[in-house]
């Protein structure tokens, strides 16, 4: 396998190469450490390269595999983690300049679980400062600079899991962990042409992850393929006494025993006319492909103030979670001018308004569950536009389609969703297909995503790096 092929190989392919002796965990770690140092740095995708830890973990993986102790497909596979996941003794900056020297004594649970699966941490990846919770309006909102898109260096990578999206998209890491409160996995996945899975709320422990919004934060993988997302989710999911919101059920990823056709899919066309023509065309072409393995039925979301409820919840919880940074004035050290002021307004949201949003949220969850119970999943574009130019504010570029209703609805209800690459739009930038599932239905949306990828070439395409 050539060098570039290695950069863009799937987890299964890399695992096979290790087991047949064509490469080793140490060789892979050194290869991706170099990719992060060169490609990753150029894309502003990296905060810290964890060379010492990576080589230590890789050597251990090599010794274990040589001794016949195989921890599974992630054993010896390098990865990067969004820099809001704590890693013992290594800076965890939350993307924020005032916190550049912040160090925690323990690994976050998701990092511990990947270590237990034998994966090798090669770097802490760039992110929008405070996961975007202070209200950024343009790409230059991180201590590492604006996230640069691997398909077009004049375009943004998306956020807030910026480095997770661009590093995977550019072949600088085989997979990455990101987090989503409201769009932060699906948007960079769509913009960078990779698969990004937002798990059900509570599926993955948040212990050791920066809190932006306790009732909305989710940790999930960004990978080359839907199958890779399933493999990583299986490693990081599960109950954790350190996070009381984790679901008691265990997630098992068994692609061989799940169906690959016969799906019932709802099609959400809301806002389609206002989207960029290429995004719309990619989606309509995706429907033709999905029709080969599914029955399709148009659906509409029930009428709720989704965006307003999410705005109040994120505003209030974000201000509370970062009260010390705001009240102490250190927020003035953030990179984006709008973020330096963004948290103050949230400190004044009345408790009654916050609680009203949470009271409506229960109605939202019940109504959406009734809708999703009639379908295996609902499909729609991941975003209404491709990645914006680095020089523009988001609203200037995307206008009214910047935020799709399904984004606030799905996150409010804690529903799982995946974005997979489904074509290209203007300026050679990727478009994404979003597949949203019922609570706990990650296996189903992964099956739909795999069925789509099995019929299309998009996930195998990659930029030249």
């Amino acid at each position, binding site marked *: 396998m050539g060098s570039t092929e290695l950069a863009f190989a799937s987890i299964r392919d890399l695992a096979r190469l290790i087991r047949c002796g064509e490469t080793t965990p140490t060789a892979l770690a050194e290869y991706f450490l170099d990719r992060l140092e060169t490609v990753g740095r150029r894309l502003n995708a990296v905060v810290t390269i964890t060379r010492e830890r990576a080589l230590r973990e890789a050597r251990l993986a090599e010794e274990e595999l040589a001794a016949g102790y195989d921890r599974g497909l992630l054993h010896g596979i390098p990865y990067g983690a969004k820099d809001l996941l704590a890693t013992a003794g290594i800076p965890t900056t939350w993307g924020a300049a005032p916190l550049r020297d912040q160090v925690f004594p323990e690994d976050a649970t998701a990092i511990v679980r990947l270590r237990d699966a034998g994966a090798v941490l090669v770097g802490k990846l760039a992110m929008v400062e405070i996961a975007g919770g202070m209200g950024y309006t343009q790409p230059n909102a991180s201590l590492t600079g604006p996230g640069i898109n691997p398909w077009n260096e004049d375009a943004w990578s998306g956020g807030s899991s910026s480095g997770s999206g661009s590093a995977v998209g550019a072949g600088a890491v085989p997979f990455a962990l990101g987090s989503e409160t409201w769009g932060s996995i699906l948007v960079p996945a769509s913009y960078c042409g990779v698969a990004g899975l937002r798990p059900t709320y509570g599926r993955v422990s948040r212990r050791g992850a920066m809190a932006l919004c306790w*009732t909305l934060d989710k940790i999930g993988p960004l990978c080359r393929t839907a199958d890779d997302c399933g493999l990583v989710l299986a490693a990081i999911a599960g109950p954790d006494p350190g996070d009381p919101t984790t679901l008691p059920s265990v997630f098992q990823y068994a692609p061989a025993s799940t169906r690959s056709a016969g799906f019932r899919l709802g099609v959400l066309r809301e806002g389609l006319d206002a989207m960029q023509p290429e995004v719309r065309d990619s989606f309509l072409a995706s429907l033709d492909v999905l029709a080969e393995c599914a029955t399709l039925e148009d659906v509409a979301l029930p009428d709720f*103030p989704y965006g307003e*409820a999410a705005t109040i919840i994120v505003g209030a919880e974000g201000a509370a979670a970062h009260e010390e940074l705001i009240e102490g004035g250190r927020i003035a050290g953030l990179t984006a001018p709008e973020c330096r002021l963004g948290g*103050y*307004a949230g400190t004044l949201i009345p408790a009654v308004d916050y609680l*009203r949003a949470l*009271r*409506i949220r229960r109605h939202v969850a019940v109504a959406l569950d009734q809708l999703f119970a009639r379908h295996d999943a609902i499909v729609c574009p991941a975003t209404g536009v491709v990645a914006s130019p680095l020089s523009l504010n988001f609203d200037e570029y995307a206008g009214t389609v910047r935020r799709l209703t399904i984004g606030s609805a799905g996150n409010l209800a804690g529903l799982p969703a995946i974005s997979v690459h489904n074509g290209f739009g203007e300026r050679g930038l990727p478009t994404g297909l979003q597949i949203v599932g019922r609570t706990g239905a990650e296996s189903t949306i992964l099956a739909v995503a795999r069925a789509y990828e099995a019929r299309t070439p998009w996930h195998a395409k990659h930029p030249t790096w």
Partner: protein
Amino acid sequence: MAEDRASGSVEIIAEAMAKTLEARHAGRFTVEEIATIRTRIGRYLAAADKLREYRLSNADEPDLVFMPYRREE
């Protein structure tokens, strides 16, 4: 059930809330910064007004569950 705010009152309330912040953090903000914060407050007020249009009853509880704690022995 609260009455809907009168038209234009969002600006008035936002102004008052921004003054609260100025008082809490005396000397921290420029005039332009206070204007930016006031705009953000206005967005939250408008969002809250929209939420008030959705009817709730006394039986509608917040989607939070409090769990009394007792250490396992």
